[in-house]
């Protein structure tokens, strides 16, 4: 009886509702979070006042941030909306950070110390144009000089104190393009320089107090201008003519426009076309000609004169006033593995104020941008610091000949992620550091016990955290038994591959992609996608695993691709090749060669398919499977999905034997007037399904329709493809399809009236879950569709299963018409969603959780049981026992189920899951502007002791039991003795 009670108690304890939850002291134990800002576009230093020195940056990821100049940490940061690109940044009144964004239509002021938004002003815009922000530099706080903003055809003057628009001026005339807005310091006249039809220079003089046009002059320049312009002083600009071979100096002193032409051939010999570089230097401009950068001094009369020339891989900063009315600028150029930083006076280029040589990691590429700042040293001389942005988007601060800090900002723009194993433990190296003494071991566990019983003091808590990190050995660079230690390989837009350790998120190695041909057109390919190339586990065990990085030269779809093979253990490039054709689609095949290299097919824009690796062995393997290779393409703009099959070898001069032609097998055409494809999705190719059947509560079997060739397609009415709020419920409907990609057969079609996108979906095993907007209810909805195989439904008993027509050994073909049926159910969901993923485990036994990346940049873990079509309002007792949750109209958002707990993955774009070796556990990696990693156990760690398992309590129990046994033994001895004496 006691045993029965004991067992029921145990059962009761173990059947408590499973959900992801974390105690506060467990945060940071298995997860890490890294904050980034992205590639810096503008940087403004704020070092005048004593106290915290900071630099305000705005980036290509639409982030405005304040960084600590001493350590590079983020004081505060704001991620603006995706369509809210920052056009300019500045500091006004010494206390507000001013940003201009959304093509010059939104002006915001942020409080400098804490990043609180102070005011926001929406500016009138009418047309697409340059956006120019000029924040007056004044140290006197009491005088409010207006901020002048040009954007969208209007010039605005905005008060820096409260963002009030003081005046605005319309420049939206046909063909007129404003190029520069200039204001001499201390002057009340604003010059607006623009080109009318690219051939007439127009200068407006505007009174900065009232916004009235004081004077207007225009002069026709017969040669015409090309857009690039450089302002060299407050009354002069230099521009290239339309042939890019003549420099035109435009002076507009007192409103008179004068041109002065200087052919570039007068400045340098055998010149080609020129390009004006962006840095603003006073009375000087930098021009790129013939792969050289020349510095041209602009004299008082507009006379041009070459004063210096440097190699073209030189990056320069804007000039900056230093003492005695002189201006200085910084330039950085490469020499081997070193970079040279030079600060020179603009007036006298031979006067080098600073010359520093710094060793630079080759994997950072070239210097892209330099921002310079000066400070007064204790001996009253000028010191300089330079903030440089490298080709891999990293941000470094150089000062006194050393890199003070660096930030790997490339990781803010991850494009693709995969995981890789770490090397095996070598013989002779002990796996874990042996615990020091038994006493210390016991002490540690007593500490842990105290922690779990809430008896620990704050110092104890710190000690416990340290102990946990140390004892877990999670940061080692070798494979562990549970598969918790792995490498996360992240490819960034800059074309850099990072290997991050799952233990603490540190960068194990990084590698910048190189163009194999080093051609002029493609110096550095962009990173596109990442594939597992070689994962040795059976044969070829001595080979290191490797990944395939697919890159592209240029942004259009027909740009030639670049393949690079990278060794995962060392981070070295094994080989790379310029493949000479474009990359539209990369298809990993489920076959490998004898060296366990996976065969990949790459489709190009012409309709050919290329096989990699290019070896005869791979070719012979592929020839065997030639008839069984199918692929599909989605033309979302035309609403067509096509299925293709291999046809034969390519013909033509450039074709080799690894190139194949294809023919179209089927097409699905969606009516363009009523349906527009907005989302397509397939299952993850490496997903493991544990069981093909599902047992119902009434002992009935349901067979999952598990096919790798299913494609989920969502279409909306063309009107509903826009934003929420742009369409009425009657005008929009959402239709989802499940399409077999071998035959093109539509297996299921489901239509939602009065709904619209965006659709975010996840496809796993035999179910799809998708999130969309219901216009009628004005709420987001989540629908689950599960697809089951009807034809195997009769295989109810063992004999039929073995002998029936659909037993497991019978071949399954996609050509036979599948008899399927689906079950679906919809729920409301209270948040916008950015992305959805699903957990994946090694054998697929563990129940699954949906990982929902919400618009608030958090990740919510939602048990799959909540999106189960079998949920009913009043589940029967049997159903309840099986774990079916009563139906509710809304999916619950449990705060403890946020796997990101108190963190935000700002700018969240994707979630990647990968199984660990331990069945219960899965790796979760989320990327956006920030990176976040954690380990999840969707059904709790049923196959290993949890981290907070108390060994001390176990030990104490055993000791207590032994003592009890001894005591009772002694007692019984005594009793027996006394009984014998009786």
């Amino acid at each position: 009886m006691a045993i029965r009670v004991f067992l029921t108690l145990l059962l009761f304890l173990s059947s408590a509702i499973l959900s992801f939850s974390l105690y506060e002291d467990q945060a940071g134990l298995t997860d890490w979070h890294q904050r980034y800002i992205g590639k810096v576009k503008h940087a403004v230093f704020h070092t005048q006042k004593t106290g915290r020195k900071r630099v305000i940056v705005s980036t290509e990821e639409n982030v405005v941030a304040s960084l600590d100049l001493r350590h590079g940490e983020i004081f505060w940061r704001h991620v603006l909306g995706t369509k809210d690109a920052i056009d300019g940044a500045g500091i006004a009144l010494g206390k507000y950070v001013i940003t201009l964004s959304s093509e010059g239509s939104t002006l915001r002021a942020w409080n400098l110390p804490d990043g609180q938004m102070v005011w926001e002003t929406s500016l009138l815009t009418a047309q697409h144009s340059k956006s120019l922000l000029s924040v007056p530099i004044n140290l006197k706080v009491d005088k409010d000089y207006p901020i002048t903003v040009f954007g969208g055809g209007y010039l605005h003057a905005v008060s820096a104190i409260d963002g009030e628009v003081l005046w605005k001026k319309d420049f939206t005339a046909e063909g007129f393009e404003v190029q520069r807005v200039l204001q001499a310091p201390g002057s009340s006249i604003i010059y607006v320089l623009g080109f009318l039809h690219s051939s007439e220079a127009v200068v407006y003089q505007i009174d900065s107090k009232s916004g009235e046009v004081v004077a207007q002059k225009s002069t026709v320049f017969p040669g015409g201008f090309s857009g690039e312009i450089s302002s060299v002083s407050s009354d002069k600009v230099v521009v290239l003519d339309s042939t890019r071979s003549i420099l035109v100096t435009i002076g507009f002193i007192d409103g008179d426009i004068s041109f002065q032409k200087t052919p570039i051939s007068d400045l340098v010999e055998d010149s080609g076309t020129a390009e004006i570089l962006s840095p603003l230097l006073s009375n000087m401009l930098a021009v790129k000609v013939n792969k050289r950068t020349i510095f041209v001094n602009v004299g008082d009369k507009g006379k041009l004169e070459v004063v210096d020339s440097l190699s073209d891989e030189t990056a320069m900063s804007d000039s900056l006033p230093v003492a005695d009315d002189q201006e200085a600028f910084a330039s950085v150029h490469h020499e081997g593995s070193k970079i040279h930083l030079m600060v020179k006076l603009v007036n006298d280029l031979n006067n080098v104020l600073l010359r520093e040589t710094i060793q630079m990691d080759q994997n950072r590429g070239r210097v892209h941008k330099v921002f310079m700042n000066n400070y007064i040293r204790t001996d009253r001389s000028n010191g300089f610091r330079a903030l440089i942005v490298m080709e891999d988007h990293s941000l470094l601060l150089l000062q006194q000949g050393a890199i003070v800090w660096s930030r790997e900002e490339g990781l803010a723009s991850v494009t693709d992620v995969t995981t890789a194993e770490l090397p095996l433990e070598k013989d002779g190296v002990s796996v874990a550091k042996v615990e020091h003494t038994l006493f210390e071991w016991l002490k540690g566990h007593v500490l842990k016990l105290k922690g779990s019983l809430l008896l620990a003091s704050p110092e104890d808590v710190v000690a416990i955290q340290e102990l946990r990190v140390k004892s877990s050995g999670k940061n080692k660079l070798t494979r562990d038994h549970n598969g918790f230690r792995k490498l996360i390989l992240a490819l960034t837009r800059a074309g850099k591959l990072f290997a991050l350790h799952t233990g603490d998120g540190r960068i194990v190695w990084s590698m910048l992609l190189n163009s194999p041909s080093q051609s002029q057109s493609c110096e550095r390919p962009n990173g596109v996608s990442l594939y597992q190339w070689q994962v040795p586990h059976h044969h070829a065990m001595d080979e290191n695993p490797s990944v395939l990085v697919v890159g592209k030269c240029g942004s259009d779809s027909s740009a030639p691709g670049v393949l690079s093979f990278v060794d995962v253990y060392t981070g070295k490039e094994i080989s790379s090749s310029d493949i000479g054709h474009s990359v539209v689609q990369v298809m990993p095949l489920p076959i490998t060669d004898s060296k366990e290299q996976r065969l990949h097919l790459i489709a190009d824009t012409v309709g050919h398919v290329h096989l990699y690796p290019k070896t005869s062995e791979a070719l012979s393997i592929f020839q065997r499977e030639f008839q069984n290779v199918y692929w599909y393409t989605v033309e979302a703009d035309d609403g067509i999905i096509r299925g293709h099959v291999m046809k034969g070898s390519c013909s033509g001069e450039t074709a080799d034997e690894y190139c194949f032609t294809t023919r179209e097998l089927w097409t699905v055409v969606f009516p363009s007037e009523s349906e527009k494809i907005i989302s397509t999705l397939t299952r993850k190719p490496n997903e493991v399904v544990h069981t093909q059947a599902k047992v119902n509560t009434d002992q009935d079997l349901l067979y999952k329709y598990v096919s790798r060739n299913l494609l989920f397609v969502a279409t909306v009415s063309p009107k509903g493809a826009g934003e929420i709020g742009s369409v009425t419920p009657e005008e929009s409907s959402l239709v989802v399809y499940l399409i077999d990609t071998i035959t093109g057969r539509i297996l299921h079609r489901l239509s939602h009236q009065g709904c619209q996108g965006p659709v975010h979906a996840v496809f796993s095993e035999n179910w799809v879950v998708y999130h969309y907007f219901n216009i009628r209810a004005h709420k987001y909805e989540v629908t689950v569709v599960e697809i089951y195989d009807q034809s195997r439904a009769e295989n109810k008993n063992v004999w039929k299963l073995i002998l029936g027509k659909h037993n497991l050994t019978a071949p399954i073909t996609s050509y036979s018409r599948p008899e399927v049926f689906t079950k679906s159910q919809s729920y409301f969901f209270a948040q916008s969603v950015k992305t959805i993923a699903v957990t994946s485990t090694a054998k697929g036994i563990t129940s699954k959780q949906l990982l929902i990346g919400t618009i608030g940049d958090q990740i919510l873990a939602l048990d799959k049981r909540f999106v189960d079509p079998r949920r009913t309002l009043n589940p029967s007792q049997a159903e309840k026992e099986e774990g079916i949750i009563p139906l509710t109209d809304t999916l619950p958002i449990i705060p403890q189920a946020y796997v990101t707990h108190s963190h935000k993955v700002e700018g969240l774009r994707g979630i990647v899951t990968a199984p660990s070796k331990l069945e219960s556990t899965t790796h979760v990696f989320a990327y956006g502007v920030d990176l976040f990693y954690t380990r999840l156990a969707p059904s709790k760690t049923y196959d290993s002791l949890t981290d907070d398992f108390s060994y001390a309590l176990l030990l104490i129990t055993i000791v207590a039991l032994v003592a009890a046994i001894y005591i009772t033994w002694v007692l019984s001895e005594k009793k027996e003795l006394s009984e014998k004496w009786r």
Partner: protein
Amino acid sequence: MAPILRSTSLFALIVCQISLIFLFASTLPISSGSESEDSYTITGRVRIPASTVIGHAAKFSNIKVILNGGQHVTFLRPDGYFTFHKVPAGTHLIEVYAMGYFFSPVRVDVSARHRGKVQATLTETRRSLTELVLEPLRAEQYYEMREPFSVMSILKSPMGLMVGFMVVVVFLMPKLMENIDPEEMKSAQEQMRSQGVPSLTSLLPASR
């Protein structure tokens, strides 16, 4: 007002906040203004009850207000106000994201006929708002709370159950044995001897 609001201290913010609630609470109709023919402005404010702000990480500077699932993102001014500019007439969705709080999405109807008149409804509770003042539905706690130390928590743990069970066996079993009448005991012992294997299960039914 503005110089006070620039202060970094959260406390000052709260004080302003409270004073502003008194100042503006009654005078804030749902406001909008037309900028051009079909674009309007939605202005509202976010109010977090002062009592929950203290000691919590949520700051006004970290709160985002999102229109139509990311079409526009804006931030709060120090007084809690936010504005969306250039919004076309129609039905829109506003969501507020603040760490530590859950806000219901708000359905906002901008009327074209009434020159941008705005009607707002909380979609979660279906409550319509007379003014666009958004308050959190609930505060969110992202961590499980450690239960305070209690004897029960030890007893409930597997180890505690083991000890408990042993205690029951050690101290209660002899009591049970005592209650058994000596003759029955003797017969039971004989039975045991004949069976060879003494077991608890053979004893327990006998005690009934």
